[in-house]
């Protein structure tokens, strides 16, 4: 018997252990509560458990911090994207608001003019070039014809110079070849405003005897057959001595040509098309003064 047990020592050990464990479990079930050895085992393992919990707690803390950091970074990136998107949207809205303001002003102008007109967008601005011109997105198909006045909410811009079916070229009043019949609103003195190729125009054929001052507003006189009477053109910005009996007067246009985005073309059908610039009259107010070729 002993020989048998010695040969099967492992199996016997297993059976003893298994039986002991079964007894242990049975006692617990019978008692409906923990047994004394459980407390002993718990006390035995508790230092290790606390140590393991501390280590894993630290690791867990580090991991949670890392996850939080990653989450924060992702959230930060997402918020930055959103801020960028909202900024763009805000810019678009601001742009739309400004355009709305401009178009509303233009609409008011159109209603107040009593002349059929067409709004056009400026697609090319050459107000600083050798010839001061604009290109509009409207042309012959929209009813535009050469010599039709072009105005903005601030005042006269110029006149249609050449037209194609869908595009029109506008000669600005500041172009060196442009001329506009004007009068001083305050004193009703008539003169010709010619472009100088710079930001300002020159008021010509004004006698030194005429009463004129800086800040005086110039409006179209209607004498050139192009612009209807009464449109604001510019303001006297500088008075010079000039030569002889004529004064040298610089005029700053009301409209800021560099910032033009929309203009109004007045559809005047009865405009005579001058073949050549009228020769300047040296003394009297000009009759039918018009522009030259900007080319």
């Amino acid at each position: 018997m002993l020989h048998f047990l010695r040969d099967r020592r492992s199996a016997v050990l297993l059976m003893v252990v298994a039986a002991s464990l079964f007894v242990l479990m049975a006692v617990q079930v019978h008692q409906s509560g923990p047994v004394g050895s459980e407390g002993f085992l718990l006390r035995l393992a508790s230092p290790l458990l606390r140590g393991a919990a501390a280590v894993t707690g630290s690791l867990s803390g580090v991991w949670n911090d890392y996850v939080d950091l990653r989450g924060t970074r992702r959230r930060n990136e997402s918020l930055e994207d959103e801020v960028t998107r909202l900024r763009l949207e805000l810019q678009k809205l601001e742009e739309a608001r400004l355009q709305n303001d401009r178009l509303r002003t233009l609409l008011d102008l159109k209603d107040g003019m009593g002349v059929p007109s067409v709004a056009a967008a400026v697609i090319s601005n050459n107000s600083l070039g050798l010839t001061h011109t604009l290109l509009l997105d409207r042309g012959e198909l929209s009813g535009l014809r050469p010599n039709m006045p072009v105005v903005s909410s601030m005042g006269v811009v110029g006149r249609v110079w050449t037209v194609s079916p869908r595009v029109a070229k506008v000669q600005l009043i500041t172009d060196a070849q442009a001329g506009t019949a004007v009068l001083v609103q305050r004193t009703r003195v008539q003169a010709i405003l010619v472009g100088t190729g710079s930001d300002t125009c020159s008021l010509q054929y004004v006698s030194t005897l005429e009463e004129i001052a800086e800040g005086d507003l110039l409006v179209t006189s209607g004498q050139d057959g192009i612009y209807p009477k009464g449109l604001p053109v510019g303001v006297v910005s500088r008075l010079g001595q000039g030569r002889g009996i004529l004064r040298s007067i610089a005029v700053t246009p009301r409209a800021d040509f560099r910032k033009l985005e929309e203009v109004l073309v007045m559809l005047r059908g009865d405009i005579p098309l001058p073949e050549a610039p009228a020769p300047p009259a040296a003394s009297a107010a000009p009759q039918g003064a018009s522009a030259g070729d900007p080319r």
Partner: protein
Amino acid sequence: MRLFLGILAVVASAAAQAALSGISPRWATFFDLPLVVVIYYAIAKGPNGALLAGTSAGLLQDSLEGTLLGVSALSKSLVGYLVGMVGLRFALAPVMSRVLVLAAATVLSRSIEVGTLAIMGRRLAYSPYPTMITTMLGNCLLAAMTYGALRREAPE
């Protein structure tokens, strides 16, 4: 020294399992750390060492987890013994074969626990089988990493 390291590994695995349960009960179901240690000892030391390691690890685990004291001890001692016997008869040197043995041992161990609890009249609060599969996969993953590393560290 080896005995001390063995005891330390058993106690540490039980403590780590309990600590893992404290941090994340869900993650704790992916592993049965004491069983991984017991199976390693079963293959390395044979059935007697595995029996002792399984019993002590299971008792610690039961006491720390609050289950019926002896359930894990019984399952781990039986499974450890069985794997130890298998290790005596078959070559389980390749890591992959050890991992496969661990997978089978995990299923067997959990089945013994379920069966023992049933015999003792304890009802299970949930179906053990999904947990059994996740534990088996987690154990295999852990074993694939640790058994290989331990083999390189101390070739048998």
